[in-house]
C-alpha cells in the first residue's frame, strides 16, 4: 500500500530525514519508535504532504502512485489520515461543522454529492458512541479549550468519521488516561481491516499492548536503524535506546 524509498527531507538545508525505507502492506500495523527529535513527526508530516518540508531525494508511493505532486488535501482524499501530535485549535468552528466540511470535500473529490444531513447525523452519532464522546462536545469549537486527552480522542473520532486507508497516529497515546487509552485503542482496532493499515508512532509499549503491531521500527537521526516484531518494543521498554545508538554508531 505504502512504499517509502530512500526518503530524504528537511527544512532549509537542514536534513531531518536521511534515507528512510519503509513498506506498509494492507492489513498491517507498524509501530515507529525512537528518541525525541529523531524525525518521527517529520516523517508523518512528509507522508501527509506538508509543504514546509522539502523532499530532496527518494519517494513516497501510495498504491503504486508517486505522491510527489499531490497536495495535502489530495493525499487526504486518497485515504491518508494523520492524527496530529499537537492538534491545532480552530475557534468558532464546531467539531460537527468541521467534520461535515471534511466529509463533503472528500465526497466532492470523488464526484459525489454532499452527504444528506440525515446520514451525516447518523454517522456522527455512531462514531461518537464508538469513542464514547458526549455529543455536547461536538458542538464545541474544534480543539479550543480541549484537554490534552480530549484532543487526542477527537483526532480518533475524526479518523473514525473519515475511514482512511492509511492512518498515522502520532503519539495519540500521550495525554490519555488509562480508560481513554483503552477506548481509543478499541476504536482503532474496530476500524482495522484487511484493507487498511495503521502506522503508530509512540514512545510507550503500553499502547502496543492494545494495538498490536506486526512490525516495530526504530527511528534514530532520520534513519530507520532497527526493525523487528513486537518483541522489539518490549526490549526498548526495558533497555532504552542507548544500545541501539551504540550499535548504529559503529
Amino acid at each position, binding site marked *: 500500500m505504502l512504499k517509502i524509498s530512500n526518503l530524504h527531507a528537511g527544512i532549509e538545508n537542514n536534513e531531518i530525514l536521511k534515507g528512510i525505507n519503509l513498506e506498509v502492506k494492507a492489513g498491517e500495523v507498524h509501530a515507529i519508535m525512537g528518541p525525541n527529535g529523531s524525525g518521527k513527526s517529520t516523517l508523518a508530516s512528509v507522508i501527509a504532504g506538508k509543504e*514546509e518540508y522539502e523532499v530532496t531525494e527518494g519517494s513516497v508511493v501510495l498504491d503504486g502512485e508517486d505522491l510527489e505532486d499531490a497536495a*495535502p*488535501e489530495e493525499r*487526504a482524499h486518497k485515504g491518508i489520515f494523520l492524527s496530529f501530535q499537537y492538534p491545532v485549535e480552530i475557534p468558532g*468552528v464546531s467539531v460537527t461543522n468541521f467534520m461535515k466540511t*471534511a466529509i463533503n470535500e472528500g465526497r466532492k*473529490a470523488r464526484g459525489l454529492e454532499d452527504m444528506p444531513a440525515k446520514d451525516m447525523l447518523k454517522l456522527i452519532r455512531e462514531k461518537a458512541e464508538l469513542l464514547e464522546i458526549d455529543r455536547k462536545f461536538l458542538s464545541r*469549537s474544534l480543539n479550543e479549550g480541549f484537554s490534552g486527552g480530549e484532543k487526542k480522542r477527537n483526532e480518533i473520532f475524526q479518523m473514525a468519521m473519515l475511514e482512511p486507508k492509511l492512518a498515522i497516529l502520532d503519539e495519540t497515546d500521550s495525554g490519555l488516561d488509562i480508560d481513554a487509552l483503552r477506548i481509543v485503542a478499541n476504536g482503532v482496532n474496530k476500524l482495522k481491516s484487511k484493507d487498511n493499515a495503521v502506522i503508530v508512532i509512540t514512545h510507550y509499549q503500553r499502547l502496543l499492548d492494545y494495538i498490536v503491531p506486526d512490525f516495530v521500527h526504530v527511528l534514530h537521526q532520520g534513519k530507520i536503524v532497527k526493525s523487528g516484531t513486537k518483541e522489539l518494543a518490549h526490549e526498548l521498554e526495558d533497555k532504552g535506546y542507548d544500545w541501539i545508538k551504540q550499535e548504529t554508531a559503529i
Partner: protein
Amino acid sequence: MAYTEEELKKELENKEYEYGFYTDIESDTFPVGLNEEIVIAISKKKEEPAWMTEWRLEAFKAWKQMEEPDWANITYKKPDFQAISYYSAPNSKPKYDSLDEVDPELLDTFKKLGISLDEQKKLAGVAVDIVMDSVSVATTFKKTLAEKGIIFCSISEAIKEHPELVRKYIGTVVPQKDNFYAALNSAVFSDGSFCYIPKGVRCPMELSTYFRINQAGTGQFERTLVIADEGSYVSYLEGCTAPSRDENQLHAAVVELIALDDAEIKYSTVQNWFPGDKEGKGGVFNFVTKRGICHKNSKISWTQVETGSAVTWKYPSCILKGDNSIGEFYSIAVTNNYQQADTGTKMVHIGKNTRSTIISKGISAGKSQNSYRGLVQVNSRAENARNFSQCDSLLMGNECGAHTFPYIEAKNKSAQIEHEATTSKIGEDQIFYCNQRGIDTEKAIALIVNGFSKEVLNKLPMEFAVEAQKLLEISLEGSVG
C-alpha cells in the same frame, strides 16, 4: 447557515469583482460642480417644499466653512468636490405600479445583482425598496405595510407625503453641521429611504434596501431616516454593491435612527462597494455617518459586514439618552489588497442604567490596513452605565495591518466598562490541519474566517447571513498561499 457549495464554488471561480458591470441607461445628470444654484436645483428637481430647500442651503453654508477631516488612519487622494456631478437619476418614469413597467435592462441589472424579484419573493417576508442612482425605482409589499400603518418609501416621497414627520426628525440625530461629509450630504442628498413604524406595531417583515452606484463620476449621497415610535419594532436591512470603475467614487451617506420609548430597531448592513482592483486602483470612498438615538427602555442594534470600498470611514453610533436604553454594535470588517478601513462605533451613555455592547471583528489580508476606533462615553448623570467591548483582529500574511483605538471617557464612578482585545493570525498549521482532513486552502480560510466571525454573523437575519458568509469568502479569495 446553509449555503450550497456549488454556489460558493461558482462565486470563487469568478475572481474579479463580480458586480463590475455597468448598466447603460440614459441618465439625467447635472453638470459637475457644487454651488448654491446646484443645491437649489436638486431641491427643485425633487419638487421639495421651501423649508427643505432652506435646510439644504443651511447645510451647504456650513459645509463651505468646514474641512475634510484627516484624523482617521487612512490615506487617500482627497476627492475634488467640484469635479463631481451631484445629481443623477435613471431617465425613466419615476413611479411604477408593477415591475413590468420597469426598464428591462434595469431588471436585468437587478438579476445580475442576485436580487431579482423572483428571488425576493422566495425570501418571503422581505420588502425591497431598490434605490438605483438616487431615485427609488420599485417598492414592493407596500400594501401589507400600509395596513399596519407602516410607512416605507423613498425619502423624496416622504418629504412630499409626510412632511410633518420628516421635518420633525431629520437632522435631529445627525445635525447638518455634524461633520464634513454629513454637511455635504445634507446639502445635496439625492434620495434614500424613509421608514416609520407606528406606536406598538411590530413590523412583520424585514425591510430591505439595496443601494448601488451606477453612473461614472456621480457621487452618491443617500439619506436614510428610520423612526420607530413608542413600543414598536423594526428590522432593517441595507445591502450595497457597485460596478467597478477606474476613478474613485465618493459615497457619503447619512443614516439617522430614532427609537422612541420602548422601541427597538435592528439595522443590518452588508457593504460590498467596489474595493478597487488588486493594484489598489479604483474603488469607492465610503464616508458614512450613521447614528441612532435611544429613548427610554429602547434598543438599537447596528450589525455590519463591511467587505467593500477602497476607503471606509464609518462609525455607527448610539446616543443612549433614555434610562435603561441599550445600544449594540456588531461588526465584521474585511480588508484585502490595498483597502483601508477605519471603522468602529461611539456609545454615548446619558441615561441611567444604560448598557452597550461592542463586538468588532477585523480581518486584514494583502497590503490592507484595518482600524477599529471606538468611543465609550459615560456622562456624569448616567448612573450604572455598563459597556462591554471586544475587538478581535485576524491577520493573513505579513503585509497587512490591524489597529485598535479604543477611547473611554467615564464621568460617572458607577460605570462598569470592560474591554477585551485579541490579535491572531491564520497559521500555516491551521491550514495544514484542514488540508490534511481533505479541505483545500481556499475552503480552509473560509472556514477559519467564518469561525472567527461567528458571533457577528449570528446576529444577522438568516438570508443576510448566508450572503455575508459568501461575501467574506469572495473578498478574501486568493489572499493566502
